[in-house]
């Protein structure tokens, strides 16, 4: 374990409400307090960042990109040719999505994303990654047995479809453009965005036709 940081005297750290704080809670509190007292961070900036990723940035952003690509052929071409620029057209850019690549699922190719070395993920379009994406089982397995992993997610890939696994080992961030499901022909761009899921943009889900 991490001996450097486990020398707290627990009696010194009792929460005002009487509940003992967990080890990470204590460490985070101490770290933020010291950095704040030294003028290195502004807690209001920390608050603003939390609010941004809790309320503003999330997979609803990516869903708008996907829906636009489904209805606008020229936008789709721009998106596949230069992901960062086309995504920025809708106002999404920045931290952990500075350099974006969009890969398209088709009848013959199924793309799925992973970061085997850490947990790289396209924040501006998908938000912060879910725990399973960051965890050892997914990172270890999807790269070598993607079809078995996809079956666990309920996705059966036909034998003649090529599965492409993208390991984001560098500073490029990937996003999957899922196939537009049948039965969505008359839907508006906003209605289409509402059926696009986070998992379909990671590549661990296929989108089903809307229920009648």
């Amino acid at each position, binding site marked *: 374990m991490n001996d450097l940081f486990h020398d707290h005297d627990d009696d010194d750290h009792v929460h005002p409400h009487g509940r003992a704080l967990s080890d990470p809670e204590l*460490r985070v509190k101490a770290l933020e307090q010291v950095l704040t007292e030294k003028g*290195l961070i502004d807690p209001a900036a920390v608050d603003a960042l939390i609010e941004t990723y809790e309320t503003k940035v999330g997979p609803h952003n990516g869903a708008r990109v996907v829906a636009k690509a489904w209805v606008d052929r020229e936008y789709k071409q721009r998106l596949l040719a230069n992901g960062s620029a086309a995504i920025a057209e809708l106002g999404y850019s920045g931290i952990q999505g500075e350099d974006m690549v969009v890969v398209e699922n088709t009848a013959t190719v199924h793309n799925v994303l992973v970061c085997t070395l850490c947990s790289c993920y396209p924040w501006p379009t998908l938000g912060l990654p879910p725990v399973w994406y960051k965890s050892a089982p997914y990172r270890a397995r999807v790269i*070598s047995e993607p079809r078995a992993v996809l079956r666990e997610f309920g996705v059966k890939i036909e034998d003649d479809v090529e599965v492409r696994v993208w*390991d984001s080992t560098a500073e490029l961030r990937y996003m999957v453009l899922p196939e537009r499901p049948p039965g969505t022909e008359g839907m508006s761009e906003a209605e289409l965005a509402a059926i696009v899921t986070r998992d379909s943009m990671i590549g661990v889900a296929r989108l089903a036709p809307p229920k009648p």
Partner: protein
Amino acid sequence: MNGIHDLGGMHGFGPINPEQDEPVFHHAWEKRVLGMFAPTFAAGLYCVDEFRHAIERMGAAHYLQSSYYEHWLHALETLALEKGVLTREELRTGHATPGVPKAQPALAATDVPKIVAHGASARVALDVKPKFKEGDMVVVKNMHPAGHTRLPRYVRDKLGCIDRDHGVFVFPDTAAHGKGEKPQHCYSVYFSAQELWGPKASRNDSVYVDLWDDYLVAA
């Protein structure tokens, strides 16, 4: 380094078990850790490669038993201590040593929308000559550096093909150790699943890995 973080292709971790309707955060302290990343990065405490390497240097058992935000917390503490930004005594007491000069935060709350939208691209605007072009066959070097690298073990010594040239990027293996950006081309490299995982892998499947010039030689 050949660390526990380099998980690709390992066995024994069990099923994925995704959580239904997962919240963005599971504990309040995780939010503070997430929120401290950009301000400390802006303050020049570390570059992203140093941050990743600080996580990679965790003990293997600790790495596997702790959560993502605990990894981040470990990296923030480790780098702050190593860079002399704070002392172990200050971390223990939760207070700055009285009388130390106070800095001005590099990231103000009002600048958060701007920095979120802009980020910090690792792309380098330098005209560096690429060693390879789309369609070139390459072999990944069989190298095992003890320091930071973004070259996963599972592609070493394997035959691939340059799928696309992403342009010029900072080289993590040097940047993580204060040895400069060494800007060079980074490519998406195609590998057949059978080249990486043997004849039991599907003949149709493939893996694309982003690799820098210094990791590759012509086939």
